[in-house]
């Protein structure tokens, strides 16, 4: 009587262990209060995971074991344990948090509070707000420089990227970029900051040494008018060679040769292709389509869409956990 039970349990544990080790893609959707889990092997939805209200930006904790999900209406981040795929706690993030980044030491989180127009410093261990810096209205993208000294935040209304000295919590430079700057990524080992301008059909390339705009990369899509090219999401490969930019209502993703600052390919995705995420091997790009409630998975080498998977309502971002 005893034996079969234990065998069954052991088998269950083995099964569970196997399932939990398998890679999975988490997708946040603003209107679902839940994350969608997609199996990257089969590109099918495995299920959903309830989370806090209006989940948007997601990022792995530096230990790689937990996922933070910023929730605009919960004024907090949900902490998801990746081994058990369960919510294990909340981290208060202040009013209406949108996007965040974590300092290289893993101790401090910097979050944009969209309504207040502030960038807040959050101590991850204690959950306490340490400092708050006033910035332009509708702050969005947040990026900490690799050296951990400067944090950059975009203001959609002001059309600025604020460069903030982390130690003094002071804005050291307001960098004028294009209209409605959204997201950022570092290139050239942190020497360049690439900023997407949603209402300017462009990316502003900022030299981080003096915070000057050194180049503006403009996008063109055959058959689409400039007004319909609304770049938001950006990802750059670890070697800094290639960038991927979601062109919004032009429904394409631009593949960019970073050093040449030239678009090499345009890949068709879904309606309002915006946030983009790479897997670890940088072989696949997961593109969120904000207006068609789905996600297009692109084979990077072939520059072709493999499949488009229905996800949640008003999807925001994908994070690949491997």
């Amino acid at each position: 009587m005893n034996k079969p039970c234990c065998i069954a349990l052991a088998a269950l544990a083995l099964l569970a262990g196997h399932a939990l080790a398998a890679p999975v893609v988490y997708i946040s959707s603003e209107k679902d209060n839940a994350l969608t889990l997609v199996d990257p092997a089969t590109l099918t939805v495995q299920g959903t995971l309830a989370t806090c209200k209006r989940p948007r930006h997601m990022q792995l904790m530096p230990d790689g074991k937990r996922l933070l999900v910023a929730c605009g209406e919960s004024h907090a981040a949900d902490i998801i344990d990746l081994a058990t795929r369960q919510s294990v706690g909340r981290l208060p993030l202040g009013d209406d948090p949108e996007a965040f980044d974590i300092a290289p030491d893993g101790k401090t989180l910097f979050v944009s509070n969209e309504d207040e127009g502030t960038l807040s410093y959050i101590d991850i261990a204690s959950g306490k707000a340490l400092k708050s810096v006033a910035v332009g209205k509708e702050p969005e993208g947040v990026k900490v420089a690799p050296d951990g000294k400067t944090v950059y935040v975009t203001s959609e209304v002001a059309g600025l990227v604020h460069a903030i000295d982390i130690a003094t919590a002071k804005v050291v430079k307001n960098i004028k970029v294009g209209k409605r700057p959204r997201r950022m990524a570092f290139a050239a080992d942190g020497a360049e900051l690439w900023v997407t301008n949603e209402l300017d059909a462009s990316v502003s390339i900022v030299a981080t040494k003096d915070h000057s705009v050194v180049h503006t990369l403009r996008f063109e899509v055959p058959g689409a008018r400039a007004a319909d090219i609304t770049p938001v999401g950006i990802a750059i490969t670890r070697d800094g060679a290639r960038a991927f930019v979601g062109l919004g209502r032009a429904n394409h993703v631009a593949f960019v040769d970073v050093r040449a600052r030239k678009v090499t390919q345009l890949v068709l995705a879904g309606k309002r292709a915006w946030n983009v995420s790479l897997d670890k091997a940088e072989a696949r790009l997961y593109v969120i389509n904000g207006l068609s409630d789905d996600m297009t998975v692109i084979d990077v080498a072939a520059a072709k869409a493999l499949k488009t998977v229905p996800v949640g309502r008003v999807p925001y971002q994908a994070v690949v956990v491997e």
Partner: protein
Amino acid sequence: MKLRAALAALAVGAVLLPAAAATLRATLIVPADDARLERTRLERAYLGHPGGPARDGVQLALDEARFELDAAGSAVALDSVGAATLDAARAAAQQAEKAGAAVLLTDLPADWTRSVAEAVKLPVLNVGNAADALRQADCRANLWHLLPSERMRADALAQALVARRWSNVLLLSGPSASDATRAAAAQAALKRYGLKLVASKPFKLSADPRERELANPLLLTGGAAYDAVWVVDSDGEFARALPYRTALPRPVVGDAGLTALAWHAQFERFGAPQVVRRFAKAAQRPMTAHDWAAWVGGRALVAAVVAAPKGPAVAWAKALAGNDLDGSKGVTLSFRAWDGQLRQPLLLTDGQAVVGSAPVDGILHPRNALDTLGADAPERLCKARS
């Protein structure tokens, strides 16, 4: 009378920032006693009517631009003046010009607006008047319009009807002069988009049984076959009570039912909820289409100063005309060179939700789909700009 004039001339000024290297001074001219803002009218909250003073929107745009202005090393100072008559508005405009204002903003009746634009050389931003005449026969080279014109609103609705294939339209229009002009705009839009006018009938607000043919919705909408009823009611009271009281089970559009507006507080896309929330926090009321136009007017001032931080006024005027603006409607907005109108998408709303936007999908234009709303360049209706 003297007291009134003195009161009217009293500038309720508030300088946003201390004079910096270059401060753009702007003066907003509004009616001293604005019948549109009487308490009982505001309480009705008719769609397409102002919800409060224009200053609220302009001020919000300036307040939230602090970083942008600081980064450019410049500032915008806003004055507002109440004018009791056309002549007072004209005098206020000239006085502001003399006192160093670089831009005027107006939320005035159409003939007052025209008079102000004629009295000064400065750019005049019309944030509150939708009259087509100001964009056509009465247009001026220095007059710019933030609020969509009546024609743009009518075209937007007509496009929505085309998209639904609700092709046969019964038109009901009210007794005022404004109703007559706006009904003509509605008819022109029906024609432009190939819709059929089944009948056009006047209505009147009345409980008099002898006038029931004019006042009773069942009688007004009976005896005809139609896909939609388009009601033109600048006042608002009749239109509001028309849906669900038609003889046939058909939707009402126009000034009730489905309405085309520059903005609605329930719009959920493109950062609109943040704008609405900031406005509600600052002004303690929901953000209407008029408030949006005033807010974009403020944003136009900021964009001009940022484009030419040191001025002079000529450079600001040039930047005003040429700048692209971000009005949280998902596309860049710009002024049409041929009539000074800000091209923009319109929202289709029943007052509870934004159910769509115009231009609707599939309506094409050789250059910019936004120019399917309102007067297009080849029509050459504004002689002062051609």
